[in-house]
């Protein structure tokens, strides 16, 4: 493929860590749209594309991709600092499935043609990707998925349904897992396919969640024709490739940022409700705070693994369980403190970020998505503790 000239002329890896951190911080603070800080929910493309294009223009959209593909080629240590700075400023997540999931997958498993066609379009914002994994009957048991892709001449014909597809209504492309060999053992008949969402036969239907937000969608496929060159890797080897991407997700979902945000809100709420003098509240808050700091201590040990360029083991799932359950406990305390205000549909008067019910509801699915905490416990029991 033609090499892309990185728009960031400087080799940021050469900077000292702290200098790099300040460099990133200054740029984010100068360029991030202030009205988008700490959004209470995932933003839609029409809301956050301003930020996507700012990052793209700076050449900072894909910090983890190698420079020859238009990324920043940052070392793991620098990538962690980069992410920490985004989190520190409360930056919204972009529509980032192309950036964090598909791009790295194509760089590792794609053909030169696939890389040349798709990667520049992620970098330019022309292609916005969504991830088609879960199905109505394939949630925790993802490998039992039934959406089929049958090869007819030069095309796969796709039929079936995906669900919980994050921001599918904003995406014009989907990477999806499809069943290409119905006779094989369930993990062995799955392929990884790239589908143009504007193809005839695709219907996207948003799902309204408990926060009354349309973050997830159902996507229906009715005889959708997909060119066979859009299959990534070998046919029937999609499961292995998809799994290889998940360890990133597990450490990302274990980041203490959600708990940090919730603790700060709890503190504001306690101030407002005048409960600091209540010894029961003080002890509960102290417990949350110590739990949070201990999670940070544990998280730091896994970050250290990444910094040294080593692979994360299955035990990283511990973080996801601890983080999500702590986030939930903190928001439960918020409801207890807020009384009737804990049931308000809108943020409390005078503070647009103080919304106990919103945060409480937002915490609920964290133990469900990204592999339920029960599935994570199954994985830890088998792969880490060696139980039968």
């Amino acid at each position: 493929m033609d090499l892309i000239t990185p728009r960031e002329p400087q080799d940021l890896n050469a900077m000292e860590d702290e200098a790099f951190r300040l460099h990133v911080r200054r740029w984010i603070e100068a360029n991030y749209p202030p009205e988008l800080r700490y959004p209470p929910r995932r933003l839609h493309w029409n809301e956050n594309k301003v930020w996507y294009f700012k990052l793209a223009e700076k050449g900072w959209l894909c910090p983890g991709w190698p420079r020859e593909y238009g990324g920043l080629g940052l070392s793991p240590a620098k990538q962690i600092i980069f992410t920490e700075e985004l989190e520190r400023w409360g930056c919204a997540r972009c529509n980032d499935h192309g950036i964090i999931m598909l791009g790295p997958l194509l760089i590792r498993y794609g053909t030169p043609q696939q890389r040349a066609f798709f990667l520049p379009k992620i970098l330019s914002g022309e292609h916005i990707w969504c991830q088609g994994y879960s199905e109505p009957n394939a949630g925790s048991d993802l490998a039992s998925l039934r959406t089929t892709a049958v090869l007819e001449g030069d095309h796969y014909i796709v039929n079936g349904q995906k669900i919980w597809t994050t921001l599918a209504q904003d995406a014009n492309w989907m990477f999806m897992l499809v069943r290409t060999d119905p006779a094989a053992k369930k993990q062995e008949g799955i392929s990884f396919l790239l589908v143009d969402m504007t193809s005839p036969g695709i219907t996207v239907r948003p799902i309204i969640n408990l926060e009354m937000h349309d973050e997830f969608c159902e996507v229906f496929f009715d005889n959708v024709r997909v060119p066979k060159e859009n299959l990534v890797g070998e046919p029937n080897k999609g499961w292995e490739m998809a799994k290889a991407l998940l360890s990133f997700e597990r450490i990302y979902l274990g980041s203490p940022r959600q708990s940090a945000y919730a603790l700060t809100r709890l503190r504001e709420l306690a101030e407002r409700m005048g409960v600091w003098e209540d010894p029961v509240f003080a002890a509960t808050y102290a417990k949350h705070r110590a739990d949070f700091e201990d999670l940070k201590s544990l998280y730091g040990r896994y970050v250290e693994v990444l910094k040294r360029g080593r692979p994360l083991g299955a035990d990283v799932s511990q973080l996801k369980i601890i983080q999500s359950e702590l986030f939930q406990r903190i928001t439960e305390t918020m409801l207890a403190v807020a009384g009737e205000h804990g049931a308000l549909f809108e943020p409390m008067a005078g503070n647009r970020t103080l919304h106990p019910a919103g945060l409480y509801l937002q915490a609920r699915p964290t133990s469900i998505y990204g592999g339920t905490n029960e599935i994570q416990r199954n994985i830890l029991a088998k792969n880490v503790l060696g139980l039968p």
Partner: protein
Amino acid sequence: MSEAAGIPPYSEDQAESARLVRESAAGFLDVGRARALRFTMPGFSREAWREMAQLGWIGLLVPESAGGAGLSMIEMCALAEELGRGLAPEPLIPCAISALLLAEAGEREVLGQLLAGEAVVLTAWQDRPNTLEVCTDLDRPRCSVPMAGGATHLLLPGPDGLHLLKAADCTITTETTVDGGHIGTVRAQPGRPIGQAALGPALDRAALATAAYLLGGMEAAFAMTLSYLKTRQQFGRPIGSFQALQHKAVDTRLQIALTRAVVEEAAARPEPALCSRAKARASEAAMLVQQNCLQMSGGIGYTDQYDLGLYLRKAMVLAPAFGGPALHRARFMALSPELEEV
């Protein structure tokens, strides 16, 4: 099945030094030794005590200029963890901080005997259970002194400095603890102080090392339990194949991983707030872990003959020692700067 859970915040040299100390403790992992010493007086082995002295453990934290090994809490915690696995009953942690205090106060004679394993010097700092407050009123009896029946000397903080007394000059009464050891109450008529030393940092180190000892006990009890889950058959299959037990085992593991994370971070940076956070986590986790292990082991875990219960009973003694979870969490909060606004 690594016990590591990520990488601790140690340099390569520190990690290597901790590993060497761990290896040197291999001879103290036999729980049978600890079992045999239960419900005896003084409840530990004088011979093992001299061996610990020869290994340099009693003076591990004491500066080399005062005859110690000049090592850090990283090595101390690695050692305490191994002793916790083997349930060593010798009062190493209390004596290690007495050694620190003697060195700081400029005392050398009894310190020399202590570092040689000839003396057992215990610091009697509290006048009531469940406190972090150092008592300096010499008229008040001092309580909860671990293994006081084996002491040759007592160190008492007073209003004018540290007082060092021979055990023979004190009245010591002991009460047996559930692990087969004991705690003592000390009444003394002190004379002149030997010098000044700061109790705070010494008690922080004792609390942190005790947290590490509890961590070792958690690891050992959990390893026993895992092996039981894999071999014990009911309903025609190993009980470890049942999801209810698998999830309980994972929850147990999470507590151990969190404890290790905070203990090792505090070992690298033994600041007061971190030491308190480590002891709070370790004390609470130790009880949870031991209770879970007992439940997963069924009836056999409730017998004295099975070693598992030794760990629970040691946790009952050490969870409150040098301060329990509520005290240390409150102290952690009082010492911690507020979270950065996010």
